[in-house]
C-alpha cells in the first residue's frame, strides 16, 4: 500500500478518480459508454477526445520543462499548423484526396519543424531565456496564423482530413488513438533510449551535464522542435475536429493549460525529473474539470472561482508538505486531549 501511495502517479491519478466520481453524482450515467452509429459514445470518450490535443501539447511541453525551459509558443503553433493545412486543402483541386492530405500534413509539420528550430536556436545557441525566446513566436505566430487565414475561418470538407481529429477507427475516435500512439512513442523514445536520462541531467544540472560530455545545445534545441511538432499535430487535430481553421482562436491559452498539466503531473518547472504518465493524467484532470463545469452546470460567471478552488485543492492534496502537516495536526489534536506534559520549559528558541 505504502509503495502505491509513494508512486509519483498515485496522487494525480487519485485526483482524477475523485473528479470523475464527483461527476457521477450529478450525471448518473456519466461512466456509461454506448455504441452509437458504430462509434463509442459517452462522456469518458469525450474527455479523452477533447483532451487529446492538450495531451499532445503537454507532452512536448514536458520535455521542454524537463530541460529547465518553457515553451509559450505552442498555442500559436497550433493555430499556424491548422491554418496551413486547411489553406492547402481548401485551395487544392481535390480537397478529399489522399495526396492533398499528405501535402497538408507535410506543410504543417514542416513549418512546425522550422518554428521549433527557431525557438531551439534562440534558447540553446543564442542563450536567450526560454520564456522570452518563445514569447516572440507566441506573439508573432498568432499574427502569422491570421495572415494565413486572412483573419477568416477557413472551412474545409475533406474526409481524410476530418479523420485526424473527428474521425473514428475501430469504433474509437481516431484522435484518441493518435495521441495514445504519440504518448507511447514518446515514452519509448525517452525511456528505452538514454534520451530521458540525458534530458533530466541537462535540466537537473546543466553545468555538470556539460562536463560529462552531454551535447546539451543540440538536445535542448531538439526538445523545442519536438514540442513544436506535438503542437502542430494538436493543431491539425483541433482544426480537423471542426473541419475549419480559426487563426484567431485556435490554441488560445493552451500553453497555460499545457504547463498546468505538466505541473499537475508532478514535473517540476525547475527542470530535471519528468513524468510523461503524470502529464497525461494532468491533461485529463484539466479536461475532466472543463467537462465537469459543463455537465454540472456551473454558471460561466463562477466557473473560474470553481476552477481556482479545484486547482488549489488538487495541489494541496498532492503536496507532501500539506499531508505531513495534516497528519501532524491530527496527532497533535489527539494529544491535546490530555493535559500538557509538565516539561519545565518548552520554548521556541528565539521565537
Amino acid at each position, binding site marked *: 500500500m505504502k509503495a502505491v501511495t509513494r508512486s509519483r502517479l498515485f496522487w494525480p491519478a487519485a485526483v482524477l478518480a475523485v473528479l470523475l466520481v464527483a461527476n457521477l453524482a450529478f450525471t448518473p450515467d456519466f461512466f456509461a459508454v454506448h455504441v452509437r452509429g458504430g462509434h463509442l459514445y459517452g462522456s469518458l470518450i469525450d474527455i479523452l477526445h477533447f483532451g487529446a490535443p492538450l495531451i499532445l501539447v503537454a507532452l512536448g511541453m514536458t520535455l521542454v520543462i524537463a530541460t*529547465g525551459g518553457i515553451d*509559450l509558443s505552442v498555442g500559436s503553433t497550433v493555430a499556424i499548423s491548422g491554418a496551413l493545412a486547411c489553406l492547402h486543402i481548401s485551395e487544392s483541386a481535390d480537397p478529399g484526396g489522399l495526396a492533398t492530405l499528405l501535402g497538408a500534413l507535410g506543410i504543417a509539420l514542416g513549418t512546425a519543424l522550422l518554428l521549433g528550430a527557431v525557438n531551439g536556436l*534562440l534558447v540553446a545557441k*543564442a*542563450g*536567450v*531565456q*526560454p*520564456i*522570452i*525566446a518563445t*514569447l*516572440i*513566436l507566441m*506573439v*508573432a*505566430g*498568432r*499574427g*502569422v*496564423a*491570421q*495572415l494565413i487565414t486572412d*483573419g477568416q475561418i477557413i472551412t474545409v470538407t475533406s474526409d481524410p482530413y476530418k479523420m485526424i481529429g473527428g474521425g473514428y477507427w475501430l469504433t474509437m475516435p481516431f484522435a484518441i488513438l493518435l495521441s495514445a500512439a504519440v504518448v507511447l512513442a514518446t515514452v519509448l523514445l525517452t525511456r528505452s533510449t538514454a534520451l530521458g536520462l540525458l534530458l533530466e541531467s541537462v535540466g537537473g544540472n546543466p553545468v555538470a551535464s556539460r562536463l560529462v560530455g552531454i551535447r546539451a545545445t543540440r538536445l535542448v534545441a531538439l526538445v523545442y522542435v519536438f514540442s513544436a511538432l506535438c503542437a502542430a499535430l494538436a493543431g491539425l487535430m483541433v482544426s480537423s475536429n471542426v473541419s475549419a481553421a480559426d*487563426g484567431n482562436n485556435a490554441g488560445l491559452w493552451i500553453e*497555460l493549460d499545457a*504547463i*498546468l498539466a505538466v*505541473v*499537475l503531473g508532478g514535473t*517540476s*518547472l*525547475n527542470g530535471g525529473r519528468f513524468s510523461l504518465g503524470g502529464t497525461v493524467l494532468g491533461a485529463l484532470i484539466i479536461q475532466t474539470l472543463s467537462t465537469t463545469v459543463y455537465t454540472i452546470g456551473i454558471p*460561466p*460567471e*463562477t*466557473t*473560474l*472561482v*470553481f*476552477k*481556482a*478552488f479545484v*486547482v*488549489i485543492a488538487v*495541489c*494541496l492534496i498532492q*503536496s*507532501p*508538505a*500539506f499531508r505531513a*502537516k495534516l497528519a501532524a495536526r491530527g496527532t497533535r489534536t489527539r494529544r491535546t486531549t490530555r493535559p500538557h506534559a509538565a516539561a519545565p520549559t518548552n520554548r521556541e528558541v528565539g521565537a
Partner: protein
Amino acid sequence: MNANALLTRLRGQIPLLVTAVLLVSMFSVGSAQYDGFFSGQVVLNLLIDNAFLLVVAVGMTFVVLTGGIDLSVGAVVALSTMVSAWLVEQHGWPPLLVIPLVLLMGTAGGWLMGWIIHVFEIQPFIVTLAGMFLARGLCYTISVESISITDPQYTAMAQTRIPLGDLFVSPSALIALLVVAAGFVVLHHTRLGRNVYALGGSEQSALLMGLPVQRTKTAVYAISGFCSALGGVLLTFYMLSGYGLHAVGLELDAIAAVVIGGTLLTGGSGYLLGTLLGVLVLGLIQTVISFQGTLSSWWTRIVIGALLFVFIVLQRLITARRP
C-alpha cells in the same frame, strides 16, 4: 575600494547599458521614420500610458528575483478596478476609503499565495495561476458588465495633467516612478532586498545561512500583490472603469518587461532599473506600431514579434561578445 572592484561592478551593469542604448536607438529610428515621433511628449506618454504596467512589473521583479513567478497580477489588477468601481459607484463609498482597502486586499491576497507556496511547498506557477482564476472569477461574480466610474475624485485623478514646461505628465506616471524609486531602494539598500537576491541565488543556502526565508517569500508575493492592486488603482484612474476583462494577459507583459530588463527568470540576478527599461521597450514598440498606422491586425502582431526579436537578439549578441 580599488579600481578593479569598480570595474567588476561596472561590468555587471553592462547588460543594463546595452538595453538602454538599444532603447535609445530604437527611439531614434522611430524619430527618423515618423513625423511627430521625436518629441518629449511621446516619451512622457510612454510613462503615462504604461504607468500601471510599470508598477505591476516592479512587483513582478521582486518575485522573479526570488526565482518565483506571479501569474495572478493581471487578474488582481482587474479585480482591483472592479472592486473600486463597484464600491465607489454602486455603494457610494468614498475613494479615500476604497483605495486603501483595495491595496490591502491585493497585499493580503499576495501574502496568502506566498504563504501557501512556502508552507505547502507548491510551485508558484500553480498557486498564482489559481490566484489568477480566483481573482478573475471574483470580477465576474461582482458583475460581468463593465462599471464606469463618475466619481469626481477619480475623474480628477484621471484628468489632472501636471505641466512640465510645454509638456505634461499624469499623476499616475509620477506615482509609478515613485514606486520604481521605492522598489530600487528596497531591493538594493535594505535587508529585505538582499534577502530577495539571496533567496533567488539558492533557497537552500539562504535557509542554512539563517535568513528569514518564509518571511521573505511571503513578503515578495505580498509586494507583488500590493503592486498589482496599485496598478489596478492606476488603471482605474486611466480607464475610469472597472471591468473583469481589463488587463488580460498583463502578466505576460510584466514578465516580459522584467526579463527583457535583464532579470534572470531563475532568480538571483537582475535590476529594477532594467525592469523600467523593459517596460519602456514594450511601450515603445507599441508606440512605433501606432505611429506606423497602416498595419493590419495581423501585421501588428508580426511586427511586434519581429521588433522584440531584433531587440532580444541584439541584446544577446552585444552582451555575449564582451570578454
